[in-house]
């Protein structure tokens, strides 16, 4: 099962990289989002997966008892999801503004810093 998840992560990355290489700005944003998803899953899966066990201490116990999910990657991924959301929003805003200012979204034509029309 873990191997399958690893393959899925690979596919997410591959898709993301493919999108990054396209010349359309919207694709670029999609690529970033896909890589973001892949990276989150990578962090989550890298330390091994435990099924049906959470990282919550059961009532009556004082420490997290062995088999349990690793809480640290979860905490890291949780922040990463939210940051990823912020990043996506920022990219969208940037994309929106670029498109408005330049009137096109062909990355190969973004060779100049001058935006004077």
């Amino acid at each position, binding site marked *: *099962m873990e191997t*399958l*998840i*690893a*393959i*899925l992560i*690979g*596919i*997410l*990355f*591959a*898709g993301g*990289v*493919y*999108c*990054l*290489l*396209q010349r*359309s700005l*919207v*694709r670029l944003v999609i690529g970033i989002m*896909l890589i973001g*998803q*892949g990276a989150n*899953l*990578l962090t*989550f*899966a*890298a330390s*091994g997966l435990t*099924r049906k066990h*959470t990282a*919550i*201490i*059961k009532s009556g*116990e004082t*420490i*997290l008892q062995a088999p349990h999910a*690793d*809480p640290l990657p*979860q905490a890291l991924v*949780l*922040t990463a*999801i*939210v*940051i*990823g*959301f*912020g990043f*996506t*929003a920022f990219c*969208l*805003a940037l*994309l*929106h503004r670029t498109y*408005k200012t330049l009137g*096109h*979204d062909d*990355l190969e034509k*973004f060779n100049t810093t001058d935006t004077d029309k």
Partner: protein
Amino acid sequence: MFLLLSVALIFMAAFATPAIARFIPHKQRFLFALVPATSFALICSKASDIAQGLAISEDYTWIPAFDINLNFRLDGLSFLMALLITGIGALILTYASGYLKGYEANTRFYTIIQIFMAAMLGLVLSDNLIAMFIFWELTTVSSFLLVGFNHENPDARKKALQALIVTAGGGLAMFAGILLLGNVAGTYQVSELITHAEMIKNHKLYEAIVILICLGAFTKSAQFPFHFWLPNAMAAPTPVSAYLHSATMVKAGVFLLARLTPVLGGTSFWLHLLVYVGGFTMILAASLGLIYRDLKKILAYSTLSVLGIITLLIGMGTEFSFKAAIMMLFAHALYKATLFMVAGSIDHETGTRDITRLRGLRKVMPWTFAAAGLAALSQAGFPPFTGFLAKEYFYGSALDHNMKILLISSAFISSMFLFVLAFKIGFHPFLGRENKKIHAHEAPPTMLIGPVTLGLLSLLFGLFPGPIAKYILSPALASFNTTFHPVKLKLWHGVNTALILSLITLTCGFGLYKLRKKIRQNATGVDDKLNIQFDQSFANGLESFIKFAKWSTKLIQSGSLRSYMIITISAFAGLLLYILLYVGGMPEFYKFSHVKPITLAFLVALAIVTIVACTTLSRMTALLSLGVIGFGITLIYMMYGAPDLAFTQILVETLTVVMFMVVIHKLPRFKDFSTRRKKAFDAIFASIVGMTVTFLVIKAQNLSSKNPVSQIYAETSYLEAHGRNVVNVILVDFRAFDTFGEIVVLSIAGLGVSLLMRNNKKEDTE
């Protein structure tokens, strides 16, 4: 505290200046001189210790891990330099208050020159070479700002840039030399380096160290072939030239050479390098000075010549020559600062610096003339001035040396030329018939105090050399010999070879002075040719460097995001693959067991949706696919015991879809810009990257750490942080700092989005 205080005081004053200056009317700005004067007094208070050959050290740790500390050390050599810096500094600030009265930006001047002053003081007081280098570069930068003070003038900017490039370039070479030296000896402390001197001199890197450090010293002290920046730096306001380009900054190079003589000196490599470079500079510069008409140019060349003399004397490496070097440095600082200020006063009061137009100023500018005369006599080497003492020692040490013939003849030529240069400035403009076209008047008192004081000191210290011997020469010599013994200094040594040489110099010099007009007329054009050649080759070098930079930038930064991406990602994937395969071997593919068909179907579906998201030409399909992927991943989180993640992910996915829905009509439609071949390449490239990542994950899953970090969290979460949800406890307690950083980033992103979108709106309404 004491040495730190004397440096910090000036720094603080510099930074306070912009705020204070507005309360001080221009007429009272000589009050700024109180700052260096206080430091001067502080340093003077240690004179009695210095006279006994003691050194005062203060250590402050700065970056101990790299052996970089603020070690201040006041010994004989730095005592002399510190007195010159603060003493002449005070007089220069007084002078500047008169000279710059009309200038709008003179607050800026006071600020920068005080920063320079503090940096220079830090430079001479630092025992740690790294700290010294930092101060050294600070003097370079502040001098750049001062040379380019009239920044509206393109010529001044160009010359300031030239001075900066030459001296900062040399400084970088010196930094490399310092690092090598530190590596070889294991310390950056000059006082400790001395104990390793033998080892350093026998090291195979010795020559490299000497060359690199000398590059720094020679550029700073404008030795041939780096001499050209100093005459060009005369674009600075005269108080700056007087202070930086005669009395202090250009002395930093020779100071460093003197400072490191006990460490690096005494070899024949050192001897020849310094003697030839110094000697050549001294003769070339003095003879070039003969053909100029501009007062400041003449002064610049005579300064170059004297710097050459000092370099030569340090290179000679005998105790006698070192004595002469100290005397030369001291005498030169006194008379050259005076002559610069005189030149500035003449320029200020008459509006010209052309000596062919300046005649007969003695009547209108008597005080300036007095100062000029005293300083000129000192430079020319008349007894009983300090300049005479210095020259006597110069001749004496040359006679003592085994390179006698060469040294004596070159010393004779340069001294004779310096005589002419001295008279051209100190006497020529004041004597003779008045030029009726020039309406001059005497300089204001603020502009007289400096030159007159220094001119008188040139005479007084020559007449009564006792204090110089006691407080300056003997202690400074100790920095060279590393042992202290008092030295006597006498004006009259009886009739000896040196005195006879001196007298011949004076006679010949006077004869040459009479011929000055002829020399200048015959040699017109030579100077320009020489100068232009150096300027031109510098400019050419700079231009081809910029061309190279442009070419290489174009090569690396093609402006195509695609190629950047390919380079970056292949570097990432390549390194990862290298580490994974060659260092760790192939990952083991196992744990394929217990896969339910439904899970398999689910994962395959996710993979297909991913591919759809990448290739679809419909914006809506892409958006929906992204949503499906997000919700699919939510399921994975849910399955593997991460309810918090599942919650967050599902909410974020929902919000992302909403966000996209809102703007999707505003976004451009998908277009296929790439050709089929390019796409095929992209697909293959992407697959390789994806496979690499898969390898990485499998590899990581196979590893297990003996003591995972989470173990501590798992054990203390409830007992110490009172929370059962360990993930949340990590977020808000154990690693709350990270979370804090994250919400700051989130806030900034929010403001950024707002800015980008709102600006838009404004444009729409316009």
